């Protein structure tokens, strides 16, 4: 039976902003669910723009923030689950490790970078200081293409963005985690150097059997590296499935919009899209959050939240366009929509 690499179930996270008089509730994550089962390591991409909730989901997964509802399991072990016993912190660190977006922010400017490598080896891997720890560090640095001598004793500002991100990857790799969560890991790196890091992820996935949760808004690298893709918009999953499928044959209108908007070399843009100005109000929509901007919006879309429709195994789309005709007539008869 294939193991569940990542199971996200019914995650809700509500942020409350504003003052005593006027509170604004934002459903940063609104019933987010998706699940990937596999015997082999996979790369799952979480694609969304700002306000999609991808960063919030990352924080929930890393247990930096508690969700209002829902659960998350990694490799069949409970990470987040209300009322249940979840993985203790030290075991979490050996199972899941993060890579952050801005390598210059991810390291303390006052510390040498190897401080974090050493801490991880000693505190997470429980290796002894000195030979053991240094050996593990050396080995991991080599696998990301860096030399120990080039890294040790240096401060973050002595590295380039790409190099520093590699050090970050090495640090995350030291505990040999089963899942590495990478938050926009290449967005701050020059375009021509991005593929170096992306290819490194591929290599790590194969050599160390580590799965990746790759959070990004960059469809091109996501396409290149992912096995599965989940598209998020305003805290809701819009579409999920195998990467090539979702990006080559997008079902959801939002996915199609995203693909159309990427400035690709080769095909020129034609039309201007309708702009979204109602950002904060969109979070509170009862129906589909994309209804306001969707060229195919129907009356039903504004009042009823689409449920997951599975056109085939492993593929999900949350859109009324794909609902069975039978379902639609039933609800119309009842007077909904």
């Amino acid at each position, binding site marked *: 039976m294939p193991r569940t690499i990542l199971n996200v179930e019914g995650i809700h996270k509500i942020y409350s902003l504003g003052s005593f008089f006027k509170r604004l509730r934002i459903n940063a994550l609104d019933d987010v669910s998706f699940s990937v089962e596999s015997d082999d390591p996979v790369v799952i991409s979480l694609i969304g*723009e*700002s306000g999609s909730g991808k960063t919030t989901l990352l924080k929930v997964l890393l247990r930096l923030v508690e969700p209002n509802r829902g659960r998350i399991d990694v490799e069949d072990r409970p990470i987040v689950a209300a009322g249940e016993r979840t993985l203790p912190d030290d075991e979490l660190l050996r199972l899941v490790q993060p890579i952050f977006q801005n390598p210059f922010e991810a390291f303390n400017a006052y510390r040498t970078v190897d401080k974090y490598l050493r801490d991880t080896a000693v505190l997470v891997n429980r290796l002894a200081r000195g030979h053991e720890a240094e050996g593990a560090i050396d080995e991991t640095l080599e696998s990301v293409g860096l030399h120990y001598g080039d890294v040790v004793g240096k401060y973050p500002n002595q590295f*380039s*963005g*790409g190099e520093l991100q590699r050090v970050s990857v090495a640090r995350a790799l030291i505990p040999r985690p089963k899942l590495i969560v990478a938050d926009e890991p290449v967005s701050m790196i*020059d*375009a*021509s*150097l*991005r*593929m*170096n*890091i*992306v*290819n490194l992820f591929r290599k790590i996935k194969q050599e160390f059997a580590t799965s990746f949760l790759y959070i990004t*808004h960059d*469809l*091109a*690298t996501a*396409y*290149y590296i992912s096995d599965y893709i989940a598209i998020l918009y305003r805290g809701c999953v819009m579409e999920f499935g195998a990467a090539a499928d979702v*990006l*080559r044959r997008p079902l959801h209108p939002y996915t199609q*919009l*995203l*693909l*159309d*908007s*990427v*400035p*690709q*070399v*080769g095909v*020129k*843009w034609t039309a*201007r*899209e309708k*702009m*979204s*100005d109602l*950002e904060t109000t969109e979070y509170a929509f009862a129906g589909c959050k994309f209804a306001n901007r969707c060229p195919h919006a129907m009356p039903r879309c504004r009042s009823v939240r689409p449920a997951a429709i599975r056109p085939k195994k492993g593929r999900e789309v949350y859109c009324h366009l794909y609902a069975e005709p039978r379902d639609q007539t039933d609800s119309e008869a009842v007077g909904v929509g």
Partner: protein
Amino acid sequence: MKSNATHVHGEAASRRETVDISLRDVVGTYTTVRGTVNAVDGVSLDIAGGGIIGVAGESGCGKTTLLKLLYGNVEYPLSLTRGSIRFNLDGMPITHETIRRYWFRRIAYIPQSSMSSLNPVIRIRKQFLDRAGYSQDNVFQGARGRRQQRETLERVRQYLRELDLPVEVLDSFPHQLSGGMRQRVMVALATFFHPDIILADEPTTALDVVVQKGILLLLAEVQEALRNTILIVTHDMGVHYQLTHRMVIMYAAKIVEYGPTEEVFSRPLHPYTKMLIESLPKVGDDRVRQGAKGKPPSLYSELRGCRYAPRCPKAQAICRKQEPELAELSPGRRAACFFPEE
């Protein structure tokens, strides 16, 4: 917007002369704790006006500094230590010293982060009015009288409608608007006075792709209507492909290639340009792609010869000793390379 635009701006458009930009051995130097560094190191180019011209390159290539020098925003620690920048406006030469008089009216600047140029405690409508005092049209002169202010605001509202912006933004403070909306307001602010040149520094880098597309197309429409010149700096080659008519590629503080965008993409002359284009991943492209090898040289050290030579697969002895000129290899096409691609 198109039909309205020609009608409303028709007058301004027919008055427009193309602006030529002339850079002669421009050197822009930063004074830092570690010493001085030439972020732009001897750049010479004549750029004919009209159309959208892109300046591409990666971190440290000098494109943002070049834009700052062009705009005349040269303050410590940046200084123009050599060379000259001249604009040819209506046959009148403007140098980087005299350019301040033309800010807002004839040359406008769209920065990367709108929050740093919009006064956070002033409503948007006042930001328009403040700049109205600098406009070239007679109607805007002395916009102090209330009636004139109302008239100006009416024109602003009309312009916003043309750009498909909700007129309510005028009553808002900058922080009440989303990033995308703010940037569109910046575009409106910058273009309202029909400037001859618009300089945009990574105007959409911080924005989502969908919003980005909207703003870039807006810029394209504005350029088409006003028939002016837009210089856009961005590292995103996809944006250059979609938006620009001509391109300048920079590497390590120098210009390495120049030409019409379509040609630069289909037949890049400089090995760096070629490498840049080939390393970009594309949706739907299953080929294995490799990232670039190596990194640009440190501008603090002594540099000799072609700056790309250490990474160039075609580098020969002469490349390491002598610096190639930005030579015109065919009409309108320039590359700084001894062995350009064919």
